[in-house]
């Protein structure tokens, strides 16, 4: 079987397109590269979707955290504490057990039946966990940024008569985003990395459609040789990380475009943020 045939068979295997069966024997390098790369689709899907939705929730949570009313502030603080203080691995298990306990037949609301079985699938259930998790971590970053907005900026805004919603929309929020962006980039990178936990933590990989690490683990188990599949995953993730840094760097340039060149904040990758 040529490498091109392998590619057409397995390139989209992780989302159920292509060959039904995984290779059983005589593994080639080509198969390993193709299948692990195919699994990467899931990592990108989980990471990108969780970031996208999490961004909005994180903004709301950060605002709730600086609110004066304890009725708003306390729940947000607890949410952030629970999701940042416990391992993502445990969160996945817990969420899976919770979602499995939902009634099989669906929930009756106002005469409509909502089915719940799709929630126990990884594409939805794990996404929810990752979404809440990244929202908590990002909320902490945004909260820190909100608190470190220079006092002078806010006073200047008020001197110009910009108050309330306008002040938030035109001064506070853009500044917060600009200050938080380097840390937020790190958070994005580590979110992509933690997507590898999904298929090791309760969520089943239906008909062996898993992520990059799932396939790498499959090959390592079958060949008893960890020296090929794991470096391949590592390579794919380095590429993914570089892609994320590039994209977020572009956005960072956009956020800082009004500042003189020498005081723009640079994005530095600090590997201190995994969960």
């Amino acid at each position, binding site marked *: 079987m040529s490498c091109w045939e392998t590619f057409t068979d397995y390139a989209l295997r992780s989302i159920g397109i292509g060959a039904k069966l995984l290779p059983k*024997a005589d*593994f080639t390098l080509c198969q390993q590269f193709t299948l692990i790369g195919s699994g990467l689709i899931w990592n990108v899907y989980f990471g990108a979707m969780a970031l996208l939705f999490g961004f909005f929730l994180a903004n709301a949570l950060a605002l709730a955290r600086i609110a004066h009313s304890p009725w708003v502030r306390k729940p947000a603080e607890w949410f952030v*504490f*629970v999701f*940042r*203080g*416990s*391992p*993502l*691995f*445990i*969160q996945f*298990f*817990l969420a899976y*057990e*919770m979602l*499995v*306990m939902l009634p099989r037949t669906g929930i009756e609301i106002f005469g409509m039946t909502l089915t719940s079985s799709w929630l126990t699938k990884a594409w939805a259930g794990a996404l929810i966990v990752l979404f809440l998790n990244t929202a908590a971590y990002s909320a902490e970053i945004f909260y820190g940024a909100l608190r470190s907005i220079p006092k002078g900026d806010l006073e200047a805004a008020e001197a110009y008569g910009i108050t309330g919603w306008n002040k938030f929309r035109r001064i506070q929020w853009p500044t917060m985003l600009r200050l938080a962006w380097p840390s937020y980039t790190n958070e994005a*990178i580590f979110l992509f*990395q*933690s997507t*590898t*936990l999904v298929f*090791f933590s309760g969520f089943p990989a239906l008909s062996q459609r898993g992520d990059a*690490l799932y396939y*790498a*683990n499959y090959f*390592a188990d*079958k*060949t*008893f*040789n*960890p*020296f090929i599949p*794991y470096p391949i*995953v*590592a390579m794919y*993730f*380095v590429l993914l*990380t*570089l892609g994320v840094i590039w994209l977020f760097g572009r956005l960072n340039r956009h956020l800082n475009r009004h500042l003189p060149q020498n005081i723009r904040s640079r994005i530095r*990758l600090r*590997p*201190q*943020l*995994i*969960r």
Partner: protein
Amino acid sequence: MFAACADPKAIEGLTWATCYLTSGKHLDFYGSFITVLLLLAITAPVAMALGFGGAMAARSQITPLRWFGKAYSAMVRGVPDIVYFLFFVIALDQGIEYLNFLRVCPDTSLPVFRGMEFHVCPEAKVPLSTAAPFVFQAYNFGIAVITFAIVFGAFVANVIYGAMQAVPRAQLETAEAYGMSQGQVFRRVLVPQMWTYALPGLTNLWMILIKATPLLFLLSVKDIVYYARELGGTKTQAYDYPHPDWRLYYFLGLLVFYLLMTKLSEIVLSRIANRLSKGQATAAGEAMRKATI
């Protein structure tokens, strides 16, 4: 454990709960919390030592050593740590068995990677297939500790390297001006001052280490996640204590355990941070000095 628990089917209510929670399997479950704490207690100092060595290597004058140190601390960037966990466990295991294979096997002419298997003769297996189950558990745990120490050592190396660079150059130059040798500058000035810069990073790493401990489950150690799944699963009438699927509650228990660990660490570490900032030429140290005036 108690006399009243002799016939679990006959008892009810509080007695049942007491008996259930003190059954043999549950005692193993409580023991596995000790496993986790033991992992933390061993890994943290070993990772610190590895990290310190890595940071020293990265600052070394000898070029190959410097490359090694930089490569080690750069290892953790960009790649999920769980990849290292899965990789090192097999790689270490095979490495040990390969060395043993060269030592004890009668015929070492055949390659160890044959077809789809990793072959060594039965005498070279570590641990031997005749060993007690406890030996297997201890061996797996040992491999897990080494893996955690290597991966977290790389994180620590990164933090300590940065902290060493952050010590003001003037401090080191002053020490040199007083005639201290390179070693003395390192021991008496650089290292004592470095900790205050390293502490935020190390605090963060400690939190990460706590939250990485459930990954023991993936390294085939019978840890708290393993027991939570075992004990929580549905038990039919064939068991002494039948109950429906209670895994959710067991995992809630684990969640509380981790939240408590995090909270406790936060309190202790903030005290240490205060202690270390005393008399330092940093913003925190300056604030403390002003407060006392």
